[in-house]
C-alpha cells in the first residue's frame, strides 16, 4: 500500500464494479473486499465533503450502523467526545494532502460505545495523478490498547514507587550524613577543648617535670586530634591513611620543636589501615617520633627517619634516628614504652628495638590486610 499510483488502469476496477450498486459481484477482488473480516470503506474525494461510496459488511458489524445510514456521509460521524482532536487533525491533514495515514484513533459505534480503531487510509490515484478514492481499513484494537494502557499505568506506578522509595532512602541517607557530621563536629570540638584545658593548665605549673609530663600528654591528645581530622577529611571514614597522618604529625612536631637542626627523612608508601586501628597506630607513631625527638639528640641536631612499607600483608613502620642510641639505659619502665607495648599487642604487632649505631631503630611489624590505597575500584 505504499504506492500512490496503481499500475492497473484505475478505471478497470471501477468499471467492472460500480461500488454503489450490487452488480459486479463476479469480480473476485470486489468479492474479496466485500467478504473479508477486515472492515473496509471507500470514499470519493471528488464529491463534496468526501463521502463514503462503499462500505463492506465488516464495517457495518464493527460500527453497528446500517449501510443506508453511512453511505454518502463523511466519516467524521465515527468521532466522539473522547476522540483525540490531534489524531483527527492528523487524519484530516493526510486526506487534504492526498497522503496515506496510519493511526490509532478512538471511534464510536452507533450505540455510543467506543473502540480503538487502528485506521489505515491510503489514496488511490490514476495514471494522470488524479486522486480518485481513499481506501480505508479499520481494525478494532481495543484489547491491545487496553493492555498498552495497563502496561503504561503499571510502569508509571512502579516508577512512582521507585521514585518514592529513592526519596525515602535519600532522606534517610541525608539524616545519617547530617548525624555523622554533627557527631564528628562534637568530637573535634571536644578534642580541641581537652587540648586547651591541658595546655592552659600546663602554663600555670612551675615544676618542670610535671609541666613536661602534661606537655607529653598534650602531644598524645593532639596526635589523636590529627588522626581524627585526617580520618574525617577522607571520603571513606572506614579507612585511615597512615602515611598522610605520619607526614602531618612529623611536620607538626618538627616545625615548632624549636630545634631547626633536627631534620626528617620520610619514606612513606601510601598505606591505609581500617579505621578501628587508627587510634593505636596513630599513638604508636606519635610515641616513637616524640621519643626520638626528645631523647635521641643532645643539643646538637640529627635526623629522624620514618619509613612505611607494606610488602606482604604487613605494615612495617620504621622510626630511626642517628642520635645517642639506647645507651643501655632501660626505658622499659616509662609510660611511653608501656603504651607502645600494649598498643602493639592490640595490633598483634611485633615491636623491635635495635641499636643502629649510631642511634636507634624501632621496627613495628603488624598484620594489615588492607591493600595499598590508590586506584583500587
Amino acid at each position, binding site marked *: 500500500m505504499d504506492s500512490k499510483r496503481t499500475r492497473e488502469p484505475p478505471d478497470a476496477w471501477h468499471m467492472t464494479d460500480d461500488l454503489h450498486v450490487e452488480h459486479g459481484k463476479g469480480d473476485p477482488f470486489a468479492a474479496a473486499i466485500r467478504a473479508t473480516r477486515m472492515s473496509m470503506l471507500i470514499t470519493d474525494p471528488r464529491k463534496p465533503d468526501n463521502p463514503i461510496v462503499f462500505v463492506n459488511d465488516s464495517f457495518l458489524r464493527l460500527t453497528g450502523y446500517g449501510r443506508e445510514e453511512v453511505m454518502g456521509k463523511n466519516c467524521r460521524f465515527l468521532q466522539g467526545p473522547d476522540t483525540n482532536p490531534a489524531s483527527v487533525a492528523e487524519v484530516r491533514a493526510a486526506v487534504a494532502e492526498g497522503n496515506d495515514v496510519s493511526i490509532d484513533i478512538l471511534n464510536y459505534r452507533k450505540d455510543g460505545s467506543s473502540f480503538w480503531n487502528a485506521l489505515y487510509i491510503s489514496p488511490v490515484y490514476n495514471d494522470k495523478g488524479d486522486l480518485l478514492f481513499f481506501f480505508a481499513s479499520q481494525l478494532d484494537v481495543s484489547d491491545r490498547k487496553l493492555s498498552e494502557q495497563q502496561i503504561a499505568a503499571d510502569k508509571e506506578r512502579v516508577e512512582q514507587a521507585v521514585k518514592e522509595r529513592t526519596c525515602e532512602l535519600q532522606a534517610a541517607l541525608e539524616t545519617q550524613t547530617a548525624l555523622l557530621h554533627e557527631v564528628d563536629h562534637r568530637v573535634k570540638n571536644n578534642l*580541641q577543648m581537652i*587540648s*586547651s584545658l591541658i595546655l592552659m593548665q600546663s602554663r600555670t605549673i612551675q615544676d618542670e617535670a610535671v609541666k613536661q609530663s602534661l606537655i607529653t600528654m598534650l602531644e598524645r591528645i593532639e596526635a589523636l586530634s590529627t588522626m581524627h581530622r585526617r580520618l574525617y577529611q577522607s571520603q571513606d571514614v572506614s579507612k585511615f591513611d597512615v602515611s598522610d597522618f605520619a607526614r602531618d604529625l612529623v611536620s*607538626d612536631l618538627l616545625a*615548632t620543636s624549636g630545634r631547626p637542626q633536627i631534620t626528617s627523612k620520610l619514606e612513606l608508601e601510601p598505606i591505609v589501615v581500617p579505621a578501628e586501628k587508627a587510634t593505636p597506630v596513630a599513638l604508636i607513631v606519635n610515641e616513637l617520633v616524640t621519643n626520638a625527638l626528645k631523647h635521641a639528640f643532645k643539643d646538637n641536631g640529627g635526623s629522624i627517619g620514618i619509613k612505611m612499607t607494606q610488602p606482604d600483608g604487613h605494615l612495617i613502620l620504621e622510626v630511626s634516628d642517628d642520635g645517642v642510641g639506647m645507651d643501655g639505659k632501660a626505658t622499659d619502665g616509662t609510660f611511653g614504652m608501656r603504651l607502645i607495648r600494649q598498643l602493639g599487642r592490640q595490633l598483634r604487632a611485633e615491636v623491635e628495638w635495635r641499636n643502629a649505631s649510631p642511634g636507634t631503630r624501632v621496627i613495628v611489624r603488624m598484620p594489615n590486610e588492607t591493600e595499598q590505597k590508590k586506584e583500587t575500584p
Partner: protein
Amino acid sequence: MIEPLKVLIVEDEALLAMELECLIEDAGHHVVGWAMSSDEAKALVDTGQADIAFVDVHLADGPTGVDVAEHIRQSGRPMVVFMTANPKRIPDNFAGAIGVISKPYTMNGLMSALHYLQEGVRRPPPASVLPAGFALSPAFASAWAPSAG
C-alpha cells in the same frame, strides 16, 4: 623581625578563645578583641583595630561566621581566617577569606599557621611552607602558593 599581628578572635567557646588568646600572645602577637556572636564581631571589626580575624563558622547566634567574613570583606579590613571543625560549611569562594584552620588543630600546627600568616599579611607572599592543618582559599592559593596549584 616582622611586625606582630593584631588579631580579632571570633569564637563562641570561651575555652577555645582563651587557649587561642594564650597561643597568639605566646607567639608575640596581640589580641585586640574577642567576639562570641556575629553582632559583636561586626562591631569589633568596625573599630578597625585588627589586621586579621580568626572566625569560627558556628557562633553563639548560629552558623553566622560566614556572614562575619562577608561583612569584613565589604569593610575592606581585616583579613579573615576561618577556624572550624566542619570546613565543608565554608562556601566555595571562602567569602574572601585567606583560608581555614581545621579543628582540632594542634598547638604546633597553630603556631606554624600564625607564623605563616604573619609573613603573608605583612610581607606577602609567605616564605614558609603551608603548615599541615591549614588550607588556603582558591584565591589565596593562586596568590600565595601558585605552584601548589
